[in-house]
């Protein structure tokens, strides 16, 4: 019996799962053993969580757009399911970023600084709104094939918005991060002993994102295969 798309995705999922499982305790260990920042104290440790979440937030959108474009040109359900997975996991990472960001800002910049209209913060917030709009478009559009097609179009528009928004917000003079968090030229602002946990944090959250993305993708593909058992052959998940 030929392996179904869900079987093939399942193999990738297992590999990603094992890598994530190994990285998570390493990440925790490096964070616990990293030095306490002399200015921000324990609050600074959020550095090992907050910036790495950005990978998921942006990669989710890129996955949604690429999968959406593939769906528009090939019409294969498996690509649409990847687009859904990208949007959902991306929303999760984006939400976590928007929660951890203000907590860090309040701790680092003092009371009343939960939010500043900085270019990166504004961009993330806008990205979050686009993710929500994408999900609403899917739920409000009647017909699976039409919903998938419309969502694919919106996903492509969304990914174009990322550089466009960044450029415009920067151009019209959005406030920048306060000085204590800016990177110096030719030098990292990370103190001694902070580089490793930051690197491991980036790597771990990247794999967490990839694992969740593939997991959600597989669930979607399995659902489609269960709904249309006769179409569950190799690469035959087609709309219509």
């Amino acid at each position, binding site marked *: 019996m030929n392996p179904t798309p869900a079987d093939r995705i399942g193999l990738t999922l297992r590999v990603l799962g094992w890598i994530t499982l190994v990285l998570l305790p390493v990440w925790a260990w490096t964070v616990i053993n990293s030095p306490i920042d002399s200015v921000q104290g324990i609050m600074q440790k959020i550095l090992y969580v907050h910036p790495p979440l950005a990978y998921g937030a942006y990669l989710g959108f890129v996955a949604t757009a690429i999968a959406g474009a593939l769906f*528009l040109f090939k019409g294969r359900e498996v690509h649409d399911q990847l687009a859904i997975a990208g949007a959902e996991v991306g929303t999760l990472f984006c939400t976590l970023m928007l929660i951890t960001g203000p907590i860090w800002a309040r701790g680092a910049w003092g009371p009343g600084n939960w939010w500043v209209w900085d270019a990166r913060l504004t961009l993330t917030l*806008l990205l979050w*709104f*686009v993710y*929500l*709009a994408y999900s*609403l*478009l899917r739920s*409000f*559009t*009647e017909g699976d094939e*039409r919903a998938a*097609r*419309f969502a*694919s*179009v*919106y996903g*492509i*528009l969304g990914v*174009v*918005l990322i550089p*466009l*928004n960044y*450029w*415009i*917000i920067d*151009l*019209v*003079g959005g406030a920048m991060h306060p000085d204590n968090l800016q990177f110096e030229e030719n030098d990292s602002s990370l103190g001694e002993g902070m580089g490793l946990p930051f690197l491991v944090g980036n790597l771990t959250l990247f794999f967490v994102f990839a694992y969740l993305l593939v997991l959600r993708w597989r669930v979607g593909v399995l659902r489609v295969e269960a709904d249309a058992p006769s179409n569950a052959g190799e690469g035959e998940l087609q709309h219509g």
Partner: protein
Amino acid sequence: MNVALALLWKDLATEWRSRDRVVAMTVFSFLVVVVFQFAWPRMEPEEIARLAPGVLWVTYVFAAVIGLGRTFATELENDAMTALALAPGTRGWIFLGKAAATWVLISLVQAMTAVVFALFMRVDLLTGLAGTASIVGLANVAICSIGTLLSAMSVRSRFREVLLPVLLIPTLIPVLAAAVHSTTATMGGEALTLTLLQPLIVIGGIYSILCFLLFDFVLDE
């Protein structure tokens, strides 16, 4: 190209007979201008002048959302959307015709709103008028492009009145930011330079080309 011109003419002729969209957008714009008067404390003329470009553009964007919501609504009657989808040639031309008609209507409403805005807000819009008008015209290219594409999608969805603003407004943020930035400069007496127009040219260009290509996927046969 003929399809685009035919649709442009059809939409403008239909609007000329009914005047539905223009009247609705104009009344709504006037209301927004009036509402702003009650939304802020008593201010000096200089402070009002500082806020004016932002208020003007928020009014324009909200009015555009109202107008764009009706772009394809009339096509739903007698299933004209299907007829449009079955029309020979590239569907991008249908998009272009629809977007061009909306551009004309929105620009007309914006011109009328500007007069009321200048009167009520006591803002001097005559300073740098040509520059401001160019900025408005360019921003409208971006607004109408993305608005027409999203309107064709939302009109086929449930809660279309709510869905269009939710889809459209996040995509209009770069247009709004660039337009307010440039309008502040021209209303402040600065000469119109390519630097001021550049963001709107880039956004308008990207949105127009992308929507022209993607429109093929939003019409159902």
